[in-house]
């Protein structure tokens, strides 16, 4: 199948009519088209448009359990600008398949009804374009069958390799096993065989029920035990299925959280810096409170410092009196007062008023003071002395605390300034919730680990039950054979079971062959895509019995746990491409292969190999890429491969719409980024 052109009209982000020409006969071998645009511009939307046009389906496997009504196809701004008016959304494909050219058109009508949008199928048409240029319509009732013959709708998803699917397959998980199991089952295309296994199984069960109600006691007992065993197995399988669903849901939630976190990736380091600044600030503020409290205890000391000159003067005055012996006075005041009153000295001599001795005694009296006053002066001297001694220490302490507090305040100022800067860079408060998302993600991850451990337990119980089942079946068969010589019912039961076992064996064998085929095909591709170092060590991709993927090293030992993230991606791409190859007749992918942002963790060598190899594998390779994935380096590789035919840019236009602009490959380099950018 070669896709010539696609026309989209009012489809999702694409307002109005846009035509993408993928192929013209003059292009020859150039079968690579690059569709380049930022996330959300509508790259995957174009693949969705193809699937919608081919099958009328609007859901892709990557949509998971998004409700159908949320997968709106009609352009939002066209609806908003035409309230109450129906808007026609059209996708047209022109393609060639096995030398026959087809023109397929599918349309829906959409209308805004209050808050919701109603979308209804409008028309579909398919025309065959004959060699002479005439068109021949295909009956509407036959369109689906014709398309299904070109591309089986069950395998359609293998022709879109999106980053998410690639990532999903790199995980050794229930999800990976489910994906692989569904992929292989779709490829088997053995619906009739599966129906036959179920039908024979029902017959065998009916016969067993009849036998258990017969009079053969041992047979009945064995049948009862087998019945119980099978019931228990069913229960375990159901529980396993439920656990798998829960794990898938948790993983989807993680993916959703990761997408939300991706938006915050650019500010993650800022959030961490802010957290650290906030912690430092908190610590500094705590220190400031402590310092302030210490300073407040110094208020009295500091205020006393204001009085230092007075304290010193007073101290020096009293101290000089003390030095002179005037304080406390050597002669008591009350004694002098008694001498003056009695006018007689202690030696017995009389003292006359106005005499020289009398004047001396009056002088003494002046120099003495009463006991209370002397005590007060001495007390004051002691306080002044003590305060004076401490002034220097107190002043030092005050200065030290001031400096300390100043330093803390200055640090707080700097931290606040840095915080303000970081917060400005972080921007809105919504963006500041990223840390909560991180916690949510961690909890989900823990939940998944528990669920997987639980699933593993049930799986091992199931294996034990299966062994017991095999043993019981063997016993039962022996017993039936014993009884069966004379019993028609037993013989029929044995025959039914043998038939079912034979059919199951065929199914198993076929599945195993397909697994081996996919493994072999994936291995060839894997080794071609790997870099030299990987090729030396990694030899084979194997699809295990439980549908998990494994890589064997050169010694044929499992090596998956040791390979790098890039190598895992290469393994996933190889596996999906192998599914697409096997789904196509011949050894080439017959349907255009879409790859949506596939380069994620790939090294330059891996990218180069992918760019060189894939165009040779598929009829067409349509690469959907962002500017970080498709840079000048990748463009140069693609140019060198000689396979690059077209380049379209998806550019934002008004009202959230996207316009498609084709650009000549020779001028593409100017719009691409360098690795260093």
């Amino acid at each position: 199948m070669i896709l010539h052109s696609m026309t989209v009209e009012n489809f999702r982000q694409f307002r109005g009519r846009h035509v993408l020409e993928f192929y013209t006969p003059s292009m020859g071998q150039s079968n690579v088209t690059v569709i380049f645009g930022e996330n959300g511009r509508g790259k995957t939307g174009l693949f969705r448009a193809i699937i919608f046009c081919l099958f009328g389906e609007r859901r892709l496997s990557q949509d998971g359990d998004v409700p159908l009504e949320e997968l709106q196809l009609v352009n939002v701004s066209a609806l908003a600008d035409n309230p109450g008016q129906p808007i026609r959304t059209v996708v047209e494909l022109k393609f060639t398949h096995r030398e026959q050219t087809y023109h397929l058109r599918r349309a829906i009508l959409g209308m805004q009804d209050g808050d919701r949008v109603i979308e209804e199928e409008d028309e579909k048409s398919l025309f065959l374009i004959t060699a002479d240029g005439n068109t021949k319509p295909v009956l509407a009732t036959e369109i689906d069958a014709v398309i299904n013959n070109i591309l089986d709708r069950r395998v359609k998803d293998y022709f879109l390799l999106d980053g998410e699917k690639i990532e999903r397959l790199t995980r050794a998980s229930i999800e990976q096993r489910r994906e692989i199991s569904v992929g292989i089952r779709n490829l088997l295309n053995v619906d009739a065989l599966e129906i036959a296994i179920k039908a024979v199984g029902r017959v065998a069960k009916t016969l067993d029920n009849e036998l258990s109600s017969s009079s053969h006691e041992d047979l009945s007992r064995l049948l009862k035990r087998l019945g119980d065993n099978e019931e228990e197995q069913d229960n375990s399988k159901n529980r396993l299925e439920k656990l798998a669903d829960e794990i898938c849901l948790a993983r989807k939630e993680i993916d959703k959280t990761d997408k939300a976190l991706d938006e915050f990736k650019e500010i993650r380091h800022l959030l961490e810096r802010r957290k650290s600044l906030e912690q430092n600030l908190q610590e500094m503020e705590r220190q400031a409170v402590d310092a302030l409290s210490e300073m407040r205890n110094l208020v009295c000391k500091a205020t006393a410092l204001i009085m230092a000159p007075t304290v010193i003067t007073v101290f020096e005055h009293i101290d000089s009196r003390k030095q002179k012996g005037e304080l406390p006075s050597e002669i008591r005041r009350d004694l002098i007062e008694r001498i003056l009153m009695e006018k007689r000295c202690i030696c017995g001599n009389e003292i006359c008023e106005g005499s020289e001795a009398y004047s001396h005694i009056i002088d003494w009296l002046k120099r003495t003071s009463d006991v209370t006053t002397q005590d007060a002066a001495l007390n004051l001297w002691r306080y002044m002395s003590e305060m004076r001694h401490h002034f220097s220490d107190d002043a030092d302490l005050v200065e030290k605390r001031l400096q300390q507090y100043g330093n803390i305040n200055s640090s707080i100022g700097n931290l606040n300034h840095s915080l303000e800067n970081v917060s400005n860079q972080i921007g809105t408060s919504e963006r500041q919730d990223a840390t909560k998302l991180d916690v949510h993600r961690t909890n989900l991850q823990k939940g998944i680990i528990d669920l997987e451990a639980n699933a593993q337990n049930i799986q091992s119980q199931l294996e034990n039950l299966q062994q017991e089942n095999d043993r019981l079946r063997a016993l039962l068969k022996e017993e039936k054979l014993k009884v069966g010589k004379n019993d028609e019912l037993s013989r029929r039961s044995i025959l039914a079971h043998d038939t079912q076992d034979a059919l199951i064996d065929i199914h198993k064998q076929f599945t195993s062959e397909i697994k081996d085929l996919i493994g072999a095909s994936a291995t060839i591709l894997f080794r071609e895509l790997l870099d030299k170092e990987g090729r030396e060590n990694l030899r084979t991709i194997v699809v295990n019995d439980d549908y998990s993927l494994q890589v064997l090293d050169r010694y044929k030992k499992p090596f998956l746990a040791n390979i790098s993230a890039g190598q895992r991606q290469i393994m996933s791409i190889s596996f999906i491409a192998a599914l697409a190859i096997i789904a196509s007749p011949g050894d080439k992918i017959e349907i255009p292969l879409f790859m949506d942002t596939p380069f994620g963790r790939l090294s330059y060598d891996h990218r180069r190999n992918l760019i060189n190899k894939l165009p040779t594998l598929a009829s067409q390779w349509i690469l959907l890429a962002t500017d970080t994935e498709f840079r000048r380096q990748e463009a140069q590789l693609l140019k060198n491969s000689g396979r690059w035919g077209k380049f379209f840019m998806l550019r934002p236009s008004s009202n959230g719409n996207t316009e498609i602009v084709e650009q000549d490959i020779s001028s593409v380099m100017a719009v691409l980024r360098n690795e260093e950018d």
Partner: protein
Amino acid sequence: MRMDGNIRVHTDAMYKELYNNMKNNGVIEDFHELFFLCACIGYRKGEHAAIQKRDDRFWSRTITPKEWACYYAMIFEKSNFDYEKLSEDKKVLEIVERYANAGVKILIEDFLEDYLLPNSNNSTPQLDPACCRGLPKQFVHFIFEQAEMETWDR
């Protein structure tokens, strides 16, 4: 120097709110601290002012011995070292009240003005609650600055 604890210490009634505000906002722990600061400022600046409307502020028993010692030192120095003044607790406090009354005005002019409610300064100065957040630390800082302005022999 008996340090009599049963004396009522007064401030001007117009500063009642200010004293309460300073205590309630955690700037001071008790009234005697602010009174001590005001008295020291008034004394060192050589300013004293009679109280217009006497208002009981606190009991003298809350005054610490160190504060008492400073009050006595003021009076002793000012009286040209009259020892008789050292035994008159009540008189000492009456003089100190006047220094504190002058000191509080200086405190307001030099520091508290920015923290007062607009136009409250003329009648009963009151702190503006909106400005009080940084006051305690600035208050301590102000005292340290006043102390640094004084010179003494280290």
